[in-house]
């Protein structure tokens, strides 16, 4: 019996050697192209993540030498009265954003998909708030939310005999005010995604439904939403992840007030790190960041497991 090498025709062996050489060359080229990306990712993403793990078990002001404190930072975060408040506020925001922020883009996309003329213009208008830098949006809305009777929104409400509302100046209305702005600022991107998915739904399904005498509502429930199921599940988890990381709006609108009514988990991380001018509690900030990241990772895994069956079209 001959060897395996002998059994392979000479031409094939030559081809394989050539392939190995090409693979090696290709791999080198690939690696070269990857290097900048790996360097940037390593420096600005992986290295900070590793540093965060290290800092979470240290007491450090980033100037003096750090000391190892074990899990003290985690214990201190969990014992902090502000932690419970921040978790509660973040859940409250997530709920409000889900109730108001999730269906609005779907409705807008469905309406826009039915419009034949100027669809591009409506898409652009819907997407426009996404283009505006978040800081600019917030400062603009802060002006609108002026709680005096001379404020923009309060003036408009005054025409119909409502208000003036305190908007950001009351613990009860501050968070809903933030949700309204956040929905305005972020809905456009989701509308575009839904619109693209909707336009991909086969027209024949609606034609067949028309033949069967289905109403608009029946068509939405039985055709549109099932066809959008995969997209809906993805956007829902993305929205939940985004709401759990609420930061810019409470920082710029209210600094977490009034009386911590809009203190989110990320704002609490920021407070740990940067509120004390004599050197922040960076260890606690890193600990809470890791706790949040771990929770979101587990939550996402569970979500995908639970919804795996739903995402395939029936």
């Amino acid at each position, binding site marked *: 019996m001959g060897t395996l090498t002998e059994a392979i025709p000479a031409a094939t062996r030559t081809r394989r050697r050539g392939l190995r050489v090409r693979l090696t060359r290709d791999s080198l080229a690939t690696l070269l192209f990857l290097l900048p990306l790996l360097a940037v990712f390593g420096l*600005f*993403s992986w*290295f*900070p*993540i590793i*540093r*965060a793990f290290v*800092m979470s078990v240290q007491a*450090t*002001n*980033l*100037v*003096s*030498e*750090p000391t190892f404190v074990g899990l003290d930072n985690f214990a201190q975060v969990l014992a902090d*009265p502000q932690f419970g408040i921040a978790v509660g506020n973040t859940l409250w925001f997530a709920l409000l954003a889900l109730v108001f922020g999730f269906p609005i883009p779907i409705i807008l996309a469905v309406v826009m998909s039915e419009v034949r003329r100027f669809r591009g213009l409506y898409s652009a208008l819907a997407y426009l708030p996404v283009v505006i830098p978040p800081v600019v949006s917030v400062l603009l809305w802060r002006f609108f939310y*002026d*709680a*005096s009777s001379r404020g923009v929104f309060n003036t408009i409400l005054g025409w119909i005999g409502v208000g*003036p509302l*305190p908007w*950001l*100046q*009351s*613990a009860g209305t501050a968070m809903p005010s933030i949700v309204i702005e956040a929905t305005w600022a972020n809905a456009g991107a989701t509308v575009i995604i839904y619109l693209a998915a909707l336009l991909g739904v086969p027209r024949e399904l609606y034609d067949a439904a028309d033949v069967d005498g289905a109403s608009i509502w029946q068509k939405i429930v039985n055709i549109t939403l099932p066809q959008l199921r995969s997209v809906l599940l993805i956007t829902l988890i993305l929205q939940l*992840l*985004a709401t*759990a*990381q*609420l*930061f*810019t709006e409470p920082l710029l609108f*209210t*600094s977490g*007030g*009034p*009386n*911590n009514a809009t203190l989110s988990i*990320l704002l609490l*991380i*920021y407070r740990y*790190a*940067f*509120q*004390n*001018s*004599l*050197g*922040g509690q*960076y260890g606690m*900030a*890193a600990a809470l*960041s*890791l706790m*949040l*990241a771990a929770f*979101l990772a587990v939550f996402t895994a569970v979500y995908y497991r639970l919804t795996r069956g739903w995402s395939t079209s029936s």
Partner: protein
Amino acid sequence: MIAAVLTAVVAIVAACSPVASPSPTAAPGTGQPAATAGASSAAQAPVTITVGVLRPGATQEAVDALNLQITEFEAKYPWITVVPQEYNWTAPTFTAALAAGTLPVVFTIPFTDGKGLIAQHQIINIDSRVRALGYADKFNKNVISNGQDTSGAIWAVPIAAYGMSLTYNRTLFTQAGLDPNNPPATWDDVQAAAKTIAAKTGMAGYAEMATENTGGWQLTTSTYALGGRMETVGADGKVTATLNNDQTKAALARLQTMRWQDNSLGSTFDYAWGTINQAFASGQIGMFTGGSDLYTAMVQNNNLNPADYGVSVIPLASSPTAGVLGGGTLAAVNVVTTDAQRDAAVDWIDFYYMQKLLTQAGAVADAQALKANNQPVGVPSLPIFDKATYDASQGWIKDFINVPAAQMTPFTSKIFDQPIVTEPTAHTQELYAALDPVVQAVLTDKNADINALLDGANKAVQAILDKG
């Protein structure tokens, strides 16, 4: 995603922090820089320093005045190049810049941060350099102590001191039928005037800062004025939080009444230092408490109409412990610097901040540069050195004063008769931060329970104090 970004920011700040850089050049308490030899020869070599002296948003006239002073400095010290940077101390931005080592070579900090930064060696020991200037012993002892370590070595130089004041809008006073030359002298007067202004003009009669630690700062001011204290220090040096004292409760109760019964506080309850200045300068606020030196910032950043501005002393209760909260600013030198830069930094501090207070030539040159660019000269302040030196410096600039001095008389004629009380000494900014939500709750919740709020804040601050 934002969590990852925040984590990355914290970690990148950590990666960029000056932990690995040379530690401060002196052992604590020695007061001796490691490299004292060859300072003069090293100083002659070209050196560049950055100085944090421009407030963000400063007018072109303020920039021109600064450039003129830099030109004069560089003429006197031709080997030093000065690069001005925008700088405005706020707790979050300062913390990040400090940790990342990106502060300018010379920067300023409030009195409240001096001791902590010195203890943690986050600023440089400049004792021998300052003493070489020849006037270290002339500083007001209570003022210079903010920049000294426990052995008396100087790490930061006091450059300005202020007493809290009652700032009021003379135009709104007139519109409300009040006499702007006779500002409120008691807290009852303040409350009554606020009610009148709100009713007659539709503007906020009185406003209170409540965010970015300023709520706690102003509540402490009110507490001091009524004779209370936020901390007590035992014979053994142990600091006890006393946030839930009777005077703080009384101050909050008055705010509660003004907000919910008198309706005289307007509709904005999240002011910080910058935003309340802006609102005052635009005529939306009748009165508020703030530093006596606010006029400069309001002219440079908020386009204040000088005719609107009035300032008076804070009303004090008859209690023997009642006093005016006094604060101030220290100039400090960045740890991440060379010896030559440290020498140049102290030269700059001497030239830019000190000479105008100590010598006629320095005072006149400073005043001329400011006046030539329409910058305020003669804004009320408190003495850094002794009262005689202060009076002399005021005399030197008499011909250049361009602020409405007569409108400041209610403050300047009485402030030196009032006892000045320093800010809480231990964990000051954290104490202020714990009180912010208390002030916010009183201003935004009609049913806010003052006792419970203060007890909660006191417990939180005591826990911080116990940790040391």
